């Protein structure tokens, strides 16, 4: 390898080349920093300001950004306004408030301001006045916060119990009853449902009395509160813990409020499962095709033509594959499967609609050229002496292929798979035609036979980004989640690729590098 000294007189081209590399790296870094900053910052408990306006009104909220008033002149605070996230959708119309800086009389950060994450109406920002049980106060004033925290922990326990009861008792019983009448099962089911009602009643006993910054009162059933924190009273360590908890919930929970809140677990699961399924489908096809082209077929005009066609397939826009998948897999094959095997379910389709299997197949088709080309290059790199060596020892052509050629070409196949995964995991357009869903809280794998439900629709991180960013009611509120989801998508692809790279490295170490010829 020659190394070029940039300072020596070689003209401007080394600088140009080095400059492009630097620029690419910079843009890549900026992309990740933007995604991480905007996305992960969302989970950090921001300080909540209590703002007194000159007209005597009060409001409480997190400062989001500042902007110049349209048409305004001047400097300093003149002509600028600030956006507060004041939440409380149930009290006000929206959750955002623009305030002109000139009209602000005072800004404070009192400890007692609480933020509640709720299942309905979004967050609440204001003061906690009391916690009541069955109408009698459990704690008021300062003690209310301590009581609330204790109640939230107990609520979490009750929720777990409820979920366990549903999963372990009610669902199996319901499945048993679905197969036919069963006196014992229906008795058990009735008992379980009664238990469930008891739990629900227990959870519904507590109410919070809240007051917004401008003094309006609100009664809030505790059961709808997911999380509560007092950002102004938190130490950095507590904030970090709250941040970690927020990130974890984002990763582990399902979406709420039409994908504008909650987590993305079903989407992560759907993305990874679809990519794995696609890999399982595309690898054998691609490898066999490459073997045929490189090892079996007569090398002539026809194979050259096929090669050119395969390479060009890699350039076909992905939506075209989506249309193909819709026409052939979903309507063609899926429709026929429904007509043959799922007639009793018609007219509601089983396989005749988009689903995990059809999406994986479509993406497998999309990435097939990549795998073929990479594998073929790997096969072509194997010196003929290796093949002849095996044949000269009395190996048949099949034995030569399976024992010498394919093991040597495995790293190349994995390279193809890495490229395929990278392409497939990021595709959204074809998926919209063949099986992705806006909301599919049931992941396609569960305890019911046959465990892997290939006909189910699934969620996908890429589509989730698209849906959250453009189809939610409040784009501003959902934007941090869009960034966080985008970062997650990058990380998922990274992890999938690193797995394959690790595997490839492991194989290379086992077999050693190819000998130089």
């Amino acid at each position, binding site marked *: 390898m020659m190394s070029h000294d940039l300072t020596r007189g070689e003209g401007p081209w080394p600088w140009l080349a080095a400059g492009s590399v630097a620029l690419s790296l910079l843009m890549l870094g900026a992309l990740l920093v933007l995604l991480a900053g905007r996305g992960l910052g969302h989970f950090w408990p921001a300080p909540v300001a209590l703002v007194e306006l000159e007209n005597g009104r009060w409001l409480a909220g997190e400062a989001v950004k500042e902007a110049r008033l349209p048409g305004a002149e001047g400097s300093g605070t003149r002509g600028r306004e600030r956006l507060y996230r004041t939440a409380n959708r149930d009290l006000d119309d929206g959750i955002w408030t623009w305030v002109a800086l000139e009209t602000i009389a005072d800004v404070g950060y009192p400890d007692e301001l609480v933020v509640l994450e709720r299942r309905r109406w979004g967050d609440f920002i204001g003061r906690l006045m009391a916690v009541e049980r069955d109408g009698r106060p459990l704690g008021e004033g300062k003690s209310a916060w301590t009581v609330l925290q204790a109640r939230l922990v107990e609520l979490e326990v009750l929720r777990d119990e409820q979920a366990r009861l549903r999963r372990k008792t009610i669902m199996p019983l319901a499945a048993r009853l679905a197969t036919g009448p069963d006196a014992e099962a229906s008795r058990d089911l009735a008992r379980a449902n009664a238990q469930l009602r008891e739990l629900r009643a227990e959870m519904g006993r507590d109410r919070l009395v809240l007051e917004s910054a401008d003094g309006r009162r609100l009664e809030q059933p505790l059961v709808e509160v997911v999380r509560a924190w007092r950002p102004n009273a938190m130490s950095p360590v507590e904030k970090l813990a709250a941040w970690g908890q927020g990130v974890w919930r984002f990763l582990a929970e399902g979406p709420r409020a039409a994908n504008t809140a909650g987590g993305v677990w079903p989407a992560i699961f759907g993305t990874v499962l679809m990519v794995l399924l696609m890999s399982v489908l595309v690898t054998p096809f691609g490898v066999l095709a490459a073997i045929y082209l490189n090892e079996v077929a*007569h090398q002539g005009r026809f194979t050259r033509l096929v090669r050119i066609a395969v390479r060009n397939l890699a350039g076909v826009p992905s939506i075209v594959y989506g249309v193909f998948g819709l026409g052939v897999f979903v309507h063609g094959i899926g429709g026929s499967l429904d007509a043959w095997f799922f007639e009793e379910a018609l007219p509601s389709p089983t396989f005749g609609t988009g689903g995990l299997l059809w999406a994986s197949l479509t993406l497998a088709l999309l990435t097939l050229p990549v795998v073929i080309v990479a594998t073929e290059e790997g096969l072509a790199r194997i*010196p003929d*002496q*290796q*093949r*002849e*060596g*095996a*044949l*000269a*020892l*009395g*190996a*048949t052509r099949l*034995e030569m292929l399976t*024992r*010498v050629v394919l*093991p*040597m070409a495995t790293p190349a196949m994995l390279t193809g798979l890495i490229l395929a995964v990278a392409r497939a995991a990021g595709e959204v357009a074809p998926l919209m035609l063949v099986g992705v869903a806006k909301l599919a809280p049931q992941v396609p794998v569960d305890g019911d036979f046959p465990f892997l439900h290939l006909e189910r629709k699934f969620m996908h991180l890429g589509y989730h980004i698209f849906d959250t960013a453009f189809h939610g009611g409040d784009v501003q509120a959902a934007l941090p989640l869009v960034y966080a989801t985008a970062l997650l998508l990058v990380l998922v692809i990274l992890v999938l690729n690193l797995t394959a790279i690790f595997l490839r490295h492991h194989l290379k170490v086992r*077999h*050693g*590098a*190819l*000998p130089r*010829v």
Partner: protein
Amino acid sequence: MSVLVQPRSTGSGPIIDFHREASCLEIEDLSLAYGDKPALRGLTLRVPRHRVTAFIGPSGCGKSTLLRALNRLHDLNEEVSHEGKVLLEGRDIHDPEVAVAELRRRVGMVFQVPNPFPMSIYDNVAFGLRLLGGMRRRQMDDVVEWALTSAALWHEVKDRLRASAWSLSGGQQQRLVIARTLAVRPEVLLLDEPASALDPISTLKIEELIRNLKSQLTLVLVTHNMQQAARVSDYTAFLQEGELVEYGPTDTLFTNPRLRRTENYITGRMA
């Protein structure tokens, strides 16, 4: 076939009468062409059993082509067509009843560039045995040790049989390839310029190995190093432009060639 006298000597002592040697391979009027380009034109020669026979000649004379015809390695290339016969122990190797894999086991081959497989030293030697199958672990260990010993490599690798074959030096790799071939007990060993990619010391080791191996099997060597042919072979065939020019005991061919063309070539006066 002329099995008249078993060879009396296997060393490089005085050569006994060429015409009384038992044949292992008999090539009868063999012609071979790549597409419409002829490479061999009507060759006839006998390769005596348990002797080292060398094919020499200028580049492109067809000596490697001839060698590869002896274990049907040309089958891989669709463009190659042939006429004539090659008899191995009296049986035509192109007979449709001959299984080509079985033939190649009986006629082993070592190539110019060492080509160990990307596996451990042990697995390389055991490769052919595993293809045959039906061998116990202990038995296989013994054969591997025997083959490596025969190839004069055992003492260098016995402590690292699990190491990658590609970690060996070029000379060691070539001896490993010979051991790998010996492990399936071939009757004939074809060597296609086995030392041309090696350093002088490794070359000497390979040559010594060739001389030692002829007590076990018949060797055919292609080389363009005439000193090498003179050092290790019992018989030498000189080929030019796909034709057999002269064939006879090595001593005679090098000291007293019958034809002018042969003399010119071995004395380096080739035009």
